[in-house]
């Protein structure tokens, strides 16, 4: 249907560029109006801080990405566990995490708990807090995907004699992954963006470093525009990757 309206993929790409380029031009023009050359030069002197901060953000995000996926899977399993207290515990955890702001969690956990326990490493604390937060959302995403598999599919698996594990492996997961991937990628993009809040515990990631540059140079906008692009550089590929995965897993039911 999309092709009908736009002609061909090539035409679609041209139209996309036709929107993107003027938008970028407008953005560039307004930045040129709003900022001054001296500010950019001052900020450019601190480019090392941006690069270092960007890599710290990448490291934090990659660690938290794996850990939060693991936590998400674990919570999903707990929520389907045959033991009722485990199900309740997982449920309470998910509701508590989803019901409070990440900033509050960072402050409470870092200063209130980790600090008291003697866990001083900001990076370890940051990854743990971020993963615990994102894991709760990921478990909801996985749960939604698993529950989308129809009863007739489970019955069919039962009728041909598959074991529980085989049913998950051959029937549920391959179908659920199609439901799970788009919102999961959204979660990963959120996780990267949320890592910026870790600047409140003085973790030297991208946002914290950009703030330092802004304060040292008195050039706020010139410091924060590169910051935004730093995050886009990470989140855009994820978005494109999901679209491709969605294509590959596409089948009708």
């Amino acid at each position, binding site marked *: 249907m999309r092709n009908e309206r736009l002609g061909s993929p090539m035409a679609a790409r041209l139209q996309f560029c036709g929107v993107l380029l003027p938008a970028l031009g407008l953005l560039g023009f307004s930045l040129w109006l709003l900022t001054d050359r001296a500010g950019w030069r001052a900020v450019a002197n601190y480019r090392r801080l941006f690069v270092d901060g960007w890599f710290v953000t990448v490291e934090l995000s990659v660690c938290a990405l794996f850990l939060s996926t693991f936590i998400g899977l674990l919570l999903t399993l707990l929520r389907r566990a045959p033991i009722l207290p485990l199900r309740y515990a997982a449920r309470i955890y998910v509701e508590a995490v989803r019901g409070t702001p990440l900033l509050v969690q960072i402050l409470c956990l870092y200063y209130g708990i980790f600090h008291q326990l003697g866990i001083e490493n900001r990076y370890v604390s940051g990854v743990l807090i971020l993963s615990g937060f994102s894991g709760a959302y990921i478990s909801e995403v996985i749960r939604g995907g698993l529950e989308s598999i129809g009863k*007739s*599919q489970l*019955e*069919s698996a*039962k*009728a*041909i*004699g*598959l*074991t529980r594990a*085989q049913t998950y492996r*051959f*029937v549920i997961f*391959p*179908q659920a992954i199609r439901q799970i991937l788009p919102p999961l990628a959204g979660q990963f993009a959120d996780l990267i963006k949320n890592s910026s809040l870790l600047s409140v515990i003085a973790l030297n990631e991208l946002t914290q470093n950009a703030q330092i540059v802004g304060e040292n140079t008195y050039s706020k906008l010139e410091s924060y525009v590169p910051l935004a692009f730093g995050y886009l550089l990470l989140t855009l590929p994820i978005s494109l990757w999901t679209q491709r995965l969605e294509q590959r897993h596409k*089948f*009708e*039911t």
Partner: protein
Amino acid sequence: MKLSFNGLAKSFGGHRAVDGVTAVFEDVRSLAFIGPSGGGKSTLLRMVGGLETPTEGSLAINEEEVIFEPAALQKHRRAIGFVFQAFNLFPHMDALRNITLPLEKVHGLSAAQARETAMAALKRFRLDQHAHKRPAELSGGQNQRIAIARAIAIKPKLLLFDEPTSALDPEMTSGVLDIIEELKEEGREFLLVTHEMGFARNVADRVAFLADGRIVESGPPSELFGAPQTAACRDFLARVLKY
């Protein structure tokens, strides 16, 4: 085959779908369950197939009681080919994979053996050119034939058909019924829930009429259709055979 039901009952919530069936079918090769919707036909069939656990009573196939415990039940299901009304094929797998999956993962065939067996089954139903299509690319009749191929490929001791043509149009229905008739001629034993009275009459050597969760009447098709003994069965047949 000998099939015995002993006070078999199944309740869903407060509703007794099967309400204490006691009956013995001896020397039966193909048994058809007929009767009004909600009469308990499918539930009875599903208990025979081990897909539903009775709330009371027991059932035995060839003097062997079906044990409704997870491990025994899984073994039981593996020896039975079940064909559903809605085909229940896996939509993310092509026709061939739908058939080889149970052969490989449940019955321990090698990938090559499974493929060979599956292709033979597909060829037999003239579906070999569709081996690499997914269910969404095939018609209902083709899907149901694939589902039957999946059920017979495992060499089941018993086939169960749960309204296999209720989701199909008349032309596709005849294709599927032809196959079931063919299976009968080669001596396969099966139970069938159907609304196709003409077919039940031709293919079954015993027919049971179920209503309100009980077997009201049963016998050879010529007797049951020719001279129904109960008012309920007479009324039902008069209604469904009216047009």
